[in-house]
């Protein structure tokens, strides 16, 4: 089932189109990475999903049809958008309570458990204004988990986290995924996103330039043998004669897929003048960077 479906969503500001005809979907239970350079429309798209800004087009959560159903469906979304939304004079538990009460959650122990889940001291009376950036981020994530949401939307959640914090965040996200939570994360750090994401949406200048799901990713990361040859026309001929799936790249580079015996390949292509041979695999980060021109 689709957890989120976005169809032809457009957002115009006075002098700028922030989103242009964006159509994409997120499957239930997957971690969806939303990537793109600054100003590409990631945050606007997340804000549109959360109902914080009005857009043209349609947004549906768990198949919700009407506007009313969409508002009700948003009760199942946990969110961290832009800066953490915290009351600076409140301690961690009081910040949790302030949001939890409005969602009908009154069980203090549950709130304390969530704080411990993200590694914060549930009994500390320290006001949020004295928290480090990482602690604020973690508190905001704990708040987004109030009410056991089915969808979690996180905008740049690892900003300000130290390596240990990033590692804990990764563990938390994978644990939530195993519990069936659908997660949408926007991030600049594609290498980090790669460790958790099952699918990607790539935005550039408000447009969705590509959407990568399971099979696309598999084909992207499948291994190949990279040969650098002196005579490319001959190498191409050899590849075709031997029915080898291949791709020709500039500078005499030939990629041969589904064949990992380097020695055998070098002997097959020896007439084409093999200068180097190595096993490699596709890289999502490079692929995405190519798409966004990074």
């Amino acid at each position, binding site marked *: 089932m689709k957890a989120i479906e976005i169809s032809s969503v457009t957002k115009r500001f006075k002098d700028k189109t922030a989103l242009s005809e964006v159509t994409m979907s997120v499957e239930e239970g997957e971690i969806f990475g939303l990537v793109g350079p600054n100003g590409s429309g990631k945050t606007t798209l997340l*804000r549109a999903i*959360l*109902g*914080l*800004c*009005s857009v043209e087009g349609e947004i549906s959560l768990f198949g919700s049809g009407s506007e009313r159903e969409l*508002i*009700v*469906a*948003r*009760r*199942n*979304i*946990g*969110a961290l*958008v832009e*800066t*953490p*939304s*915290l*009351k*600076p*004079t*409140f301690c961690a538990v*009081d910040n949790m*309570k*302030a*949001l*939890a*009460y*409005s*969602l*009908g959650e009154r069980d203090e122990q549950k709130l304390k458990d969530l704080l411990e889940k993200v590694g914060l001291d549930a009994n500390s009376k320290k006001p949020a204004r004295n928290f480090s950036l990482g602690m604020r981020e973690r508190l905001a994530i704990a*708040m987004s988990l109030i*009410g056991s949401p089915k969808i979690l*939307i996180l905008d740049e959640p690892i900003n300000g986290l130290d390596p240990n914090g990033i590692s804990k965040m990764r563990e938390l996200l994978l644990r939530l995924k195993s519990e069936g939570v659908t997660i949408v994360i926007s991030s600049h750090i594609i290498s980090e996103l790669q460790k958790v994401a099952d699918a990607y949406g790539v935005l550039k200048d408000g447009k969705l330039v590509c959407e990568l799901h399971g099979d696309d990713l598999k084909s992207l990361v499948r291994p190949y043998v990279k040969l650098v040859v002196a005579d490319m026309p001959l190498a191409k001929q050899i590849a075709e004669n031997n029915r080898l799936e291949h791709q020709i790249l500039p500078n005499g580079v030939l990629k041969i897929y589904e064949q990992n015996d380097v020695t055998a390949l070098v002997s097959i292509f020896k007439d084409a003048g093999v200068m180097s041979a190595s096993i490699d695999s596709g890289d999502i980060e490079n692929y995405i960077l190519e798409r966004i021109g990074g």
Partner: protein
Amino acid sequence: MDEMKDILFSDLFKLKKHKSVYIALAVMLGVTLILFVMLWALGVSLEKLSSGSDDLELVVSTRTTLALLSQTLLTGFSDGAMVAPLFAIVIGLFVGGEFSSGSVRLQVARGCSRAKLYFSKLITLCSLLFVYLAICIVFSGILTAVRGYGEGGFSNEDLKIVVRNFFLQLLSQISMASIGVMFSFLTRSKNATIGIMLALLIGLDTVFGLLYGLEMLNVNTDWIMFMPLQQLSVACSSTKLTSLQLVAVIVMPTVYASCSTLLGIFDFRRRDIK
């Protein structure tokens, strides 16, 4: 209904934790106490002035003034405690703070109805206003009892006026609070709300205060009490109100509160939240 109850519960929790709520109350009581001391000192000076005087006119006018002074603290308790400007600051800090801390954004993102969020803030602040006025009237009552309520003591008629004034002042202040909440939602900023509300309260008072001077030129100034935020002076009166005054202090605050609430909700439901 449950959603409204939950949002209200959350707002009450946040308001209870807001320091400005207690500071404003302390200032209101402090101002009332200062006013009490000043009125007492004025009364003592007037008594001294008229004691031993054979001028009957002076004695009568002094007694009338003293009686008015004794009643002022109680009949105009919310004006004396400066509830309006102090409450405007609380509104700005509380509602503006909800926007600046991102609480409103988070609640909307979690599917809370925008109209319910608006009403919840309004109801929470009106409840606080009721508590403020209740405390201020009790405090003013205690101080008035210490000083004495003038000649003849505190009669049933006086009690009726005090109770009437309590509700009329509450209504008048609710209208002010509604306008304050509207500006908070329109500007979404603490400072802007406080600035606008204080400018409105002081500015309108100054302008209409000057216009009241036209009475001396035999120009009718009754229309002023129908203007926004101008009902409190009528609601502080210690005499029986005319029909026109009753319309001004009952209908106009209701009209202003309703209009500002509708405008505030209309804008809040329509605009994006940053």
